[in-house]
């Protein structure tokens, strides 16, 4: 079960209580939460690493992004979590054009997105608890609420006894769980994870998958890049996005025109 007392961030990036939002039904599913139209990306003067990406992600769905190493999965995720602007095309996030979005407005959008980086990117001199608390402190959540939420998250990822440990003293799997806890503590509308089970054993991978599934059940859209075909096979309801040589394979057109959008 997901912790129930977690705070969440509203559309302006300010936090509000999750339960209150749930009770009022404020966060209903939004079709086309992400839309890419003919997006291309190149680094410097090199060739395009991503070409002609056009797809639409439906709110509340579970997506796997797969493809060979170097196919462009991480580049696609970077554009999704607003770490990289495309060199061409249009990206709409939560109904807003984020390609031309003024820089000052980007933080508000980032607070609605949770990211699990492939290399975790934990702050090395902060404890596991402080790393997990970072998104809430950035959002200005009261310390009492931060403490409660962090305790619940630590229990959720099985790291209560390692709360004060710093990342360099944690194993790869423990660091990954801290990174996941940090990504979900703000109850993001979209959770983006790059190889989130790459450093954990099978039992922990199962547990993390259950956590992701429970988040998805609460309405969070999941986009997970992975090589792990077994992981993909375990989530039957998930859709797969395959990147091959910088292009998105979409033979049926389902990703470009999700069925739900025509209802």
């Amino acid at each position, binding site marked *: 079960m997901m912790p129930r007392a977690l705070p969440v*961030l509203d559309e302006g*990036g300010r936090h509000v209580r999750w339960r209150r939002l749930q009770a009022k039904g404020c966060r209903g599913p939004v079709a086309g939460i992400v839309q890419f139209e003919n997006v291309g990306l190149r680094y410097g003067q090199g060739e395009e690493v991503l070409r002609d990406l056009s797809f639409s992600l439906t709110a509340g769905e579970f997506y796997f992004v797969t493809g060979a190493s170097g196919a462009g999965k991480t580049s696609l995720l970077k554009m999704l*979590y*607003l*770490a*990289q*602007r495309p060199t061409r095309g249009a990206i709409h996030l939560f109904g807003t054009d984020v390609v031309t979005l003024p*820089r*000052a407005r*980007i*933080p*508000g959008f*980032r*607070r609605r997105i949770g*990211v699990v*980086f492939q290399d975790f*990117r*934990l*702050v*090395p*001199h*902060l404890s596991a608890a*402080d790393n997990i*608390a*970072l*998104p809430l*402190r*950035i*959002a*200005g959540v009261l*310390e009492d609420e*931060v403490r409660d939420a962090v305790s619940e998250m630590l229990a959720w990822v099985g790291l209560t006894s390692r709360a004060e440990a710093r990342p360099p003293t944690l194993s790869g799997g423990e660091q990954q769980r801290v990174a996941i806890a*940090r990504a979900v503590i703000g109850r993001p509308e979209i959770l983006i994870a790059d190889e989130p089970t790459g450093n954990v054993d099978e039992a922990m991978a199962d547990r993390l998958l259950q956590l992701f599934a429970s988040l998805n059940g609460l309405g969070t859209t999941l986009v997970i890049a992975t090589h792990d075909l077994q992981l993909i096979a375990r989530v039957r309801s998930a859709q797969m996005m395959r990147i091959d040589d910088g292009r998105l394979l979409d033979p049926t057109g389902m990703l470009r025109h999700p069925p739900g959008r025509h209802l």
Partner: protein
Amino acid sequence: MSAASTRVLDTARTGRGMVWVIAVMLFLTVLATAGGIGTARATGAIGMQLGGRATVQVAAADPARRERDAGEAAAVLAGIAGVSQVRVVPRAEIARLLSPWLGGDAADVDLPIPAMVDLTVADEASVTRVRRALAAALPGARLDLHSAALAPVRRFLTVMSVLGLALVAMMVAATAFVVVLAARAGLEAHRGTIEVMHMLGATDVQVARLFQRRLSLDAALGAAVGGVAGLVAVALLGAQASALGSELLGAVTLGGLGWGVLLVLPFAFVALAAGVARRAVVRSLGQML
């Protein structure tokens, strides 16, 4: 962000070099400011003390004639409009003034030392009237204006004041530059953490606030050390100058306002560091996505 977030920047990764740089800069700035204010006040004091003072020299070979001419000159001068405080300088006083150069021989009545008449003139027109009257009554008498004699000293003190202010301006500019460099170095040292904070939704202002707080604390520590050292140094220099008994150095004082300016300098440095740090960090962050 909350107070707990201040731990986000790893203080162990950036040394406290800026503390000492600020301390040295402020120490030098306090000295330069004190020098500038002191010499400016001395220039003003000398101008007030010597403004209008003049001396008439009567250089007759015969001592009796010399004394008589001096008395006559004093009588002529006393009757001129705009002239006041006319006084024949006694022979003993002249001998005492010359004793550093002539020793006991200065009192020898056979020495052809000119007689002197001190006076105060109100303005340039009075000076002209004095020159005409002396030319008519005592063609051999010479008028020396003290302001003309001390003009090089006043010019020197004025140059010293301007130099002091220029030094202060350069110190302030150098300090601002040091803070910019420290802010940039801090950003580079914490680039990874800043990128994570940005990805988690931190605004530039939130990140800049962390650096501003950190650099302001360093600046405050440096300002305290440099400020106290500078004020102590100025006080000691002042005491030493007073002990010399020199009239010129005695005029170099700070006054209440001067000391007030020196006391404000450390706070001004901290405010400068905080403002420059915030601006530098926000500008640098603006180049990141």
